[in-house]
């Protein structure tokens, strides 16, 4: 007996697998699912019943995915939404990346973009509506076919059954719909939560079979007829320009086809990637560093520290923290410093492009294909509709594949200009780590005082770091009074700009200022949870400092500060119970907590650590409670929490990108250390029961872990860490 799924469409991977294994399938192979840029037109064999749903005669039902899948599980949750209303066997659904057309733009961003932990929230009504409208259309067709009232029909698992026993598949109704030009209704009723049989239940990843057999197609796996490969010699100082290059040695390598300068450096084209990369290493390039060779992270840190003492742009001023601090008997002050961080996705940046006289085709894993298309169209002087992007799966992104400059795409397009075949550019791991897009370095200065009972009375925080959004196309939306709302996201008590949430805490006097130092050198870039990756550490660690100053239990203090925020208060009570917070710990062990609100969803984590005398430590236990509204796919949420915890723990333990003389010092996984399986604690995930509309869960777990661990280390040792990563300042996560 085969243990493979019985559905024929889910079996197609095996066919291609054996074909691949025998080598009979080479360039331009047909994938088990289509990467076609446009949906098949309605015709004899298939029908688009809706922008998102296509039904084939053989009853294959395909969901067009308008959000990118990079491990986030969004293909699964979107398919679940359709399946719930369409009454289709969940396992039967197929998926396909939707093209770059307006009907597929994110309803939240108004552009084709997957970001901000809002995909599931934004899709929750549209995708269910698509399923419900399609079902109504099919029922209408069956009524017509059998001349029966709709009340005599039931839908189940892709079939419509008449009360008298007759049945017809959804695909079997295509002809009726086409012959009679039937249209779906303008409005439909959606199922109430109580009637759900798919949504809210743990569902396994829809594309998992492809991912355990090597059949999943990532950008780097694209093969096109005649395709050649390119490797780029990039400058040691990011942002430098080519003055001249000597390619004699490179051209002497058999298999090297061409060498040419592009904006990013000098590209060597060859018959395979290995040859191209050897060619790139054999080049001698003369660079103009445009004065960037003097930049260093040490100088940035020093400058930002000085800047943090000066008055910044005022983001929030509740009460009179400044006035209070001028007269208070004791003001506690601390400075927190967080380095640049690389994303280091498992799949390095890559892109395949073919440039024709009048159009351009691109195969790439991207979060941001709307902007990518705009950038490329402008660069080539083509109308946007003449730039076609085929979105693939992605081997991680953490924000990196939402490039504002489409940097890893323009490389390939420029390399493909003047060529008659497609060109695939692959970044080496070293190029990827040194790729110049990082979570910005930030310095936060915090000052606080306590009231007579030892609770925080005042808070004055100054955040200093390069703005991500300033002078980008998102400037008008994300800059408020010249303040990047990401620079202070997670510091403010009140909603700010387009972010409709604050911290869950209430401190009577609360002032937050922001400085935007010049955007020079590398690019400040979104990194999973964006601003919270630094504001979370600064805020939650300093809150811990105030708790200890006021002789308060850190979790009890957070419960006190959330008295007016029932959602977070209830979540913290749950955390207290499930984490055994009040159980005593042995000497050398410590417990820490942090609670955050990111993209609307509250989340909190409690951790336990064990620290040796030499500062080496283990994270023994992580307990996480999250409230993301209605839990669309509990299994997917669990995965996102576990993954977020790992990435956040990895960053706080080891993560840092250093610039010395303008050059990124790190290069590969030996000096930009990833967390490994033997260091990964089990993460206990608890989801608050809720019928509120779903909110984000993809980035939330990344941020509480870092301050929770730092606070636990303080609890265990009495040593407060205010500079990161931990392994540079006395605490090394055991290998």
């Amino acid at each position: 007996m085969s243990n493979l799924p019985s559905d024929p469409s889910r079996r197609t991977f095996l066919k291609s697998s054996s074909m691949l294994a025998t080598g009979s399938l080479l360039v331009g192979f047909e994938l088990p699912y289509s990467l076609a840029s446009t949906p098949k037109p309605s015709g004899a064999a298939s029908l688009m019943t809706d922008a998102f749903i296509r039904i084939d005669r053989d009853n294959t039902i395909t969901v067009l995915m308008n959000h990118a899948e990079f491990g986030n599980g969004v293909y699964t949750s979107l398919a679940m939404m359709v399946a719930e209303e369409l009454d289709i066997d969940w396992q039967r659904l197929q998926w396909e990346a939707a093209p770059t057309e307006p009907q597929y733009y994110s309803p939240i961003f108004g552009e084709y973009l997957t970001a901000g932990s809002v995909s599931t929230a934004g899709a929750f009504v549209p995708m269910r509506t698509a399923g419900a409208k399609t079902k109504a259309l099919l029922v209408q067709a069956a009524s017509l076919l059998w001349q029966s009232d709709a009340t005599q029909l039931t839908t189940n698992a892709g079939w419509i059954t008449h009360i008298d026993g007759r049945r017809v598949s959804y695909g079997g109704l295509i002809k009726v719909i086409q012959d009679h030009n039937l249209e779906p209704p303008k409005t439909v009723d959606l199922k109430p939560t109580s009637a759900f049989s798919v949504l809210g239940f743990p569902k396994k990843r829809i594309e998992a079979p492809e991912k355990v057999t090597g059949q999943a197609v990532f950008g780097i796996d694209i093969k096109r007829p005649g395709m050649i490969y390119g490797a780029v010699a990039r400058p040691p100082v990011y942002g430098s320009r080519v003055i001249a290059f000597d390619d004699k040695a490179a051209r002497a390598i058999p298999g090297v086809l061409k060498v040419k300068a592009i904006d990013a450096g000098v590209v060597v084209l060859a018959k395979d990637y290995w040859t191209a990369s050897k060619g790139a290493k054999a080049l001698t390039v003369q660079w103009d560093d445009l004065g960037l060779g003097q930049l260093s992270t040490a100088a940035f840190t020093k400058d930002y520290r000085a800047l943090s003492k000066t008055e910044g742009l005022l983001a929030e001023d509740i009460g009179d923290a400044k006035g209070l601090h001028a007269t208070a008997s004791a003001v506690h002050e601390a400075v927190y410093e967080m380095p640049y961080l690389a994303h280091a996705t498992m799949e390095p940046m890559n892109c395949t492009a073919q440039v024709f006289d009048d159009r351009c085709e691109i195969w790439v894993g991207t979060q941001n294909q709307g902007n990518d298309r705009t950038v490329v169209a402008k660069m080539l002087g083509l109308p946007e509709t003449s730039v076609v992007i085929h979105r693939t799966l992605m081997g991680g992104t953490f924000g990196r594949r939402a490039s504002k400059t489409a940097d890893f795409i323009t490389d390939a397009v420029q390399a493909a200009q003047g060529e008659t075949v497609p060109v695939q550019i692959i970044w080496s791991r070293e190029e990827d780590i040194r790729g110049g897009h990082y979570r910005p370095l930030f310095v936060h200065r915090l000052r606080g005082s306590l009231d007579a009972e030892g609770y925080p009375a005042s808070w004055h925080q100054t955040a200093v770091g390069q703005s991500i959004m300033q002078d980008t196309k998102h400037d008008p939306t994300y800059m408020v009074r010249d303040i990047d709302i990401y620079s202070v996201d997670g510091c403010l008590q009140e909603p700010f700009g387009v972010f409709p949430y604050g911290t869950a805490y209430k401190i009577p006097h609360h002032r937050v200022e922001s400085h935007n130092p010049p955007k020079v050198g590398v690019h400040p870039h979104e990194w999973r949870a964006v601003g919270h990756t630094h504001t979370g550490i600064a805020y939650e660690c300093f809150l811990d400092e105030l708790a200890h100053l006021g002789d308060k239990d850190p979790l009890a203090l957070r419960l006190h500060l959330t008295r007016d925020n029932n959602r977070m208060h209830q979540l913290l009570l749950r955390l207290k119970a499930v984490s055994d917070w009040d159980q005593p710990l042995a000497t050398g062990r410590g417990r820490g907590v942090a609670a955050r609100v990111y993209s609307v969803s509250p989340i909190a984590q409690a951790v336990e650590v064990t620290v040796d005398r030499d500062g080496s430590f283990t994270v023994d236990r992580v307990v996480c409670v999250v409230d993301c509204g209605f839990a669309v796919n509990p299994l997917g949420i669990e995965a996102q929490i576990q993954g977020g915890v790992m990435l956040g723990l990895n960053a706080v333990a080891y993560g840092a990108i250093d610039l010395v003389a303008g050059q990124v010092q790190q290069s590969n996984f030996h000096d930009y250390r990833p967390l490994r399986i033997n260091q990964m604690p089990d993460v206990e995930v608890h989801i608050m029961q809720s019928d509120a509309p779903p909110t984000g869960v993809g980035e939330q777990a990344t941020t509480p872990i870092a301050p929770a661990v730092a606070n636990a280390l303080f609890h265990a040792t009495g040593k407060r860490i205010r500079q990161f990563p931990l392994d540079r300042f006395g605490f090394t996560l055991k290998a």
Partner: protein
Amino acid sequence: MITIVVNDEARTVSASPDTPLLWVLRDHLHLTGTKYGCGISLCGACTVHLNGEAVRSCTLPVSAVADQRVETIEHLAAGGDYNAVQSAWLEEDVAQCGYCQSGQIMAATALLNNNPSPSDAEIDAAMAGHICRCGTYQKIRAAIHRAAKETKRGGPSA
């Protein structure tokens, strides 16, 4: 021209002899399930089986494996069934982005071939060379235990 035996079939390629097996598999044979991650044997994404043992293909010159037996992720379910590790991976819903998973599965399969019921510590030791940036480690551990149990129960072998 170099001949290697990939997934039970002799294949002759015209790659330069210093080409790592990884790029021969990917660019010459279009077996793209084996992934590039670091190029210096630090991440495990490129893991294949060489004569039944898990090896890193990104630093292994193709000339060093001439006429030897190479098995890739594409071949694990060649008989029509997932192997025990693949089945357990699906049951535990391990993959997130999935990019490292070919290497993880090849390593786990080799582990279970050598040690049919590994402890947590033995799993950690065998899998510590395999990086996952999505953080699927907890589920990898669970899936390996599940595969070990299913294999003992007489299910498909790893």
